[in-house]
């Protein structure tokens, strides 16, 4: 082995702690990228495969009652590859030992067996016997919460008649990866389940023999979805069809898409930030580390080593560290990627997982890290190698110190000598001090942006559940009901206050941009479900015109005062224009709000409602539940408290898991940076510090000089760190926002404190290590060698 390589190995062994710290910083950046991109690609591929294998439909429509003879006409629509007509009905369930009412989405299974589209993935049990009237299959999540296994029984109120059902199988469906009950915002597996039942039994319960109430289409690859939807609407319209929609508006798909979108956006936002930050930090650290080798580089030159040989020797040193970092990062990133993929796979209940290899990501992460490291080392090497060896072998010329403050101020004399030394040392290398400060600031910043998502979710909960929707429950009806049903609800036991709600599906359009939304009509003085404007103040609905989500306004490019076009998709279908009169801050979905009276004038109908918001006397909850179960027209009850709990338990868990993973990596990076700064400062100043000890300074006094500097730089770095962190969080917020959910821009004070605390803890630990080294400084050895 060549002597220089031997030196390399021994140097690495000597500097193992620092080398490891730098490697960990690199590993942090690499792991973030590998983890984020790897898990996203695997989940995305899993979804595609799941959809493909189980024939997830492309177009969905609901109709009141249409004869099966229409199926052939639908199949003739150009571009349609397959049609699945079926019965789909919401019904209240009565589950043993469960007081609150649960809702089931009943879906018919063809008597011949498997449906053509949205095929089930049977987890256990079997399909129902053809012609069976009591046998059902239930969705896995629902079965698990209730401890149902094949053989279990429960009751359902089908079309006003209670029936006992027997579970024969438990299944998953690509159509209900996200199953959200009426009035709910988040899946609640306890209160909402999917129940598949043989067609004949369900048809006879709802008097739908020879008819269907739901139809799904599979389109050919090159078919036009818009055209198919238009033709389907034309066919279904006479039978009470409400406008058909594509995957984009299918609840489960949209939620899954948004979930994966958030993952993708996290993976395209945080890793580049992390990687750039680590690149900068590695660059900074290695350039200082190489600068320390100045005298040895001079010696090699004196001995006749060529510049290229010397440069290559030090680059190898850097590359070994980088390779170590890339190896650790790739391994950790792969492991975390599998962990996150499995976590999300469980959450979505994918029946299987497809793990996608992404060699390009590893290569990209490796190249970026290596480039950053090499550029950093090269910066110092070029400078030193350019020096004549005689100069390089001497320590750098005494730096030009300046009076830190104007002399006439004479403040210098008020500060102690160690403080002056520290201040002058910082001011003598302004660039280095600035870069180090920036490095620590970046460490704080990536911690802030990692914790940010958690803060945002809290704000979202606060605004949504405590400022806007303040009702305890939302009682939804199967179909629209006359307004006077509100009085009936008000008389139910335990109901304290009521507020009606009307929901009308519309297409909203401005120019060629359109979206399918719900317009909710509510009393102008609504107090339970309030409207919050963009300044987070409750507002009263204007008497006329339409209030829409701020996000929707941005999509459409409209402001208050502009006019939008609406296609009413219920009742008398027509198209009309309405002015936008207010913008609403809501974090979930996009929608419109109107004064209930104005909406009923618009619909040309007598006042009707779809649901009632209520506040409840908690002590009478059981009585209320019993009463509701006896009302056949109720489709379900959405409970805010449960909704909030579920929100925290599901989406919040996944987001915060990701956030914790990123926070952990950010902490490692922050730590590596601070530790290296401290260690390198010590090396750079070992001689000076030893001289002070010789002059009679105590260990404590000597340490103070070094540690004061570390403390000062760490503290100075915090405010810019907060500012950069805020900026990065803003980028994250922008990238994470979509039509289904927005993330508010909010950073708790505690987040700043936490980020700084982690950095300060890293600084304290580093200080302790450095302090131990200061006490061990070999005075004689340091002073005996060259000056």
């Amino acid at each position: 082995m060549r002597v220089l390589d031997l030196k390399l190995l021994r140097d690495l062994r000597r500097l193992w702690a620092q080398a490891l710290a730098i490697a960990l910083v690199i590993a942090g950046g690499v792991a973030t990228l590998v983890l984020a991109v790897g898990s996203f690609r695997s989940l995305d591929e899993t979804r595609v495969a799941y959809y493909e294998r189980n024939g997830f439909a492309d177009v969905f429509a609901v109709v009141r009652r249409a004869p099966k003879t229409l199926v052939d006409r639908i199949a003739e629509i150009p571009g349609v590859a397959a049609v699945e007509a079926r019965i789909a009905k919401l019904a209240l369930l009565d589950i043993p030992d469960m007081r609150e009412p649960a809702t089931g989405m009943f879906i018919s299974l063809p008597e011949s067996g498997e449906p053509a589209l949205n095929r089930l993935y049977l987890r256990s049990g079997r399909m129902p016997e053809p012609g069976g009237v009591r046998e059902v299959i239930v969705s896995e999540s629902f079965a698990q919460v209730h401890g149902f296994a094949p053989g279990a029984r429960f009751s359902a109120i089908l079309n006003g008649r209670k029936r006992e059902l027997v579970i024969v199988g438990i299944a998953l469906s690509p159509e209900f990866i996200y199953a959200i009950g009426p009035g709910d915002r988040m899946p609640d597996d306890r209160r909402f389940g999917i129940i598949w039942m043989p067609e004949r039994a369900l048809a006879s319960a709802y008097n739908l023999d020879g008819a269907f109430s739901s139809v799904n289409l599979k389109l050919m690859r090159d078919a036009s979805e818009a055209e198919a939807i238009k033709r389907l609407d034309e066919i279904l319209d006479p039978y009470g069809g409400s406008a058909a929609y594509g995957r984009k508006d299918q609840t489960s798909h949209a939620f899954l898409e948004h979930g994966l979108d958030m993952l993708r956006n996290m993976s395209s936002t945080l890793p580049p930030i992390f990687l750039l930050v680590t690149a900068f930090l590695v660059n900074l650290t290695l350039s200082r580390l190489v600068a320390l080798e100045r005298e040895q580089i001079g010696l090699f030159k004196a001995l006749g080593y060529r510049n290229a040989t010397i440069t290559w020797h030090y680059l190898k040193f850097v590359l070994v560290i980088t390779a170590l970092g890339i190896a650790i990062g790739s391994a950790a990133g792969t492991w975390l990627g599998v962990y996150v993929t499995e976590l999300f796979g469980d959450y979505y209940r994918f029946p299987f997982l497809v793990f996608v290899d992404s060699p390009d990501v590893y290569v990209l992460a490796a190249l970026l890290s290596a480039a950053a490291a090499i550029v950093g080392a090269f910066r110092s090497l070029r400078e030193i190698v350019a020096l004549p060896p005689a100069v390089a072998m001497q320590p750098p010329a005494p730096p030009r110190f300046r009076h830190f403050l104007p002399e006439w101020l004479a403040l210098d004399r008020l500060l102690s000598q160690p403080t002056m030394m520290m201040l002058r040392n910082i001011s003598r290398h302004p660039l280095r001090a600035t870069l180090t400060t920036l490095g620590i600031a970046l460490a704080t910043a990536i911690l802030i942006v990692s914790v940010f998502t958690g803060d945002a979710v809290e704000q979202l909960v606060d605004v949504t559940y405590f400022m806007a929707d303040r009702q305890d429950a939302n009682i939804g009806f199967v179909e629209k009901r006359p307004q006077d049903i509100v009085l009936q609800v008000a008389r139910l036991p335990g109901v304290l206050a009521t507020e009606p709600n009307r929901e009308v599906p519309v297409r909203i359009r401005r120019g060629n941009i359109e979206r399918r939304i719900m317009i909710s009509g509510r009393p102008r003085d609504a107090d339970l479900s309030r409207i919050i404007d963009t300044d987070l103040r409750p507002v009263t609905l204007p008497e006329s015109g339409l209030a829409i989500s701020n996000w929707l306004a941005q999509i459409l490019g409209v402001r208050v005062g502009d006019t939008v076009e609406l296609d009413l998709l219920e009742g008398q279908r027509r198209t009309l224009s309405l002015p936008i009169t207010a913008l609403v801050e809501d974090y979930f979905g996009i929608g419109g709000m109107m004064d209930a009276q104005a909406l009923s004038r618009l619909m040309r109908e007598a006042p009707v409602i779809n649901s009632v918001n209520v506040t409840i006397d908690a002590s009478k909850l059981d009585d209320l539940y019993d009463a509701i179960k006896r009302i056949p027209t109720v489709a379900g009850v959405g409970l805010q408290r449960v909704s909030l709990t579920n929100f925290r338990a599901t989406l919040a868990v996944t987001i915060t898991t990701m956030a914790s993973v990123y926070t952990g990596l950010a902490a490692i990076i922050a730590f590596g940076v601070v530790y290296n700064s401290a260690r390198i400062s010590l090396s750079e100043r070992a001689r000076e510090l030893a001289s002070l000890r010789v002059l009679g300074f105590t260990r404590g006094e000597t340490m103070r000089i070094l540690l004061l500097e570390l403390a000062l730089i760490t503290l100075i770095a915090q405010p810019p760190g907060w500012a950069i962190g805020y900026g990065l969080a803003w980028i994250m917020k922008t990238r994470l926002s979509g039509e289904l959910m927005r993330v508010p821009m909010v950073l708790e004070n505690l987040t700043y404190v936490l980020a700084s605390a982690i950095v300060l803890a890293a600084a304290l630990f580093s200080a302790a290590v450095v302090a131990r080294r200061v006490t061990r400084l070999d005075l004689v050895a340091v002073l005996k060698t060259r000056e």
Partner: protein
Amino acid sequence: MNQRVFTAHGLTKTYVSGEVEVRALRGLELEISAGEVVVMLGPSGSGKSTLLNIMGGLDHATSGRLFFKELELTGLDDRRLTTYRREHVGFVFQFYNLVPSLTAYENVALVTEISNDRMRPEEALSLVGLENRMTHFPAQLSGGEQQRIAIARAIAKRPEVLLCDEPTGALDSKTGIRVIEALLGVSSQLGTTTLIITHNATIQDVADRVFFFADGQISKIHKNETRRAAAELRW
């Protein structure tokens, strides 16, 4: 003995250290023949080290000309100066400049690996009497031993010139004498032209000629009719 190894005409060197401009050499003239042992004496800042650095190709002159044999060093770029050092020059520094992470053997190998006409490291180490310390790291050796390793490193490539800057400056007298003994022993064995900078006037007795430096010039040259053996020195 008569072949010219070094010839300098009007050599000057001005450099800036911190905020001070130093005129280290002011039009220096000299001639040194092959195999000569030259001791350079003079106060700090008189230009000895600067001259040695320029002769060794470690630094550039500001003006004037310096020849190594026929080769004009003052006209060489960094790359060719490196080749010159690699092929012709051995250095011994005041503070040894051993690589701390390499053993005695490896520090010598550092040089033999990149030179053509070389000895084996153990051969060079035995010339300075340290053949049994080969596996020791610098930190495990005394100052005198470290300097003898530096000498072994310098002569292992059989250089034509050996440039020594204060080789005994960091050593006690007994050790210093042993180092000078080793240095001269090796150089006479190999016929190496040797230049030694020192503050220790006693050492001048071992030289063929003594250059006295003052203000960036050679103020006086003294020729010893007879050279004393290093072992006879006392200080």
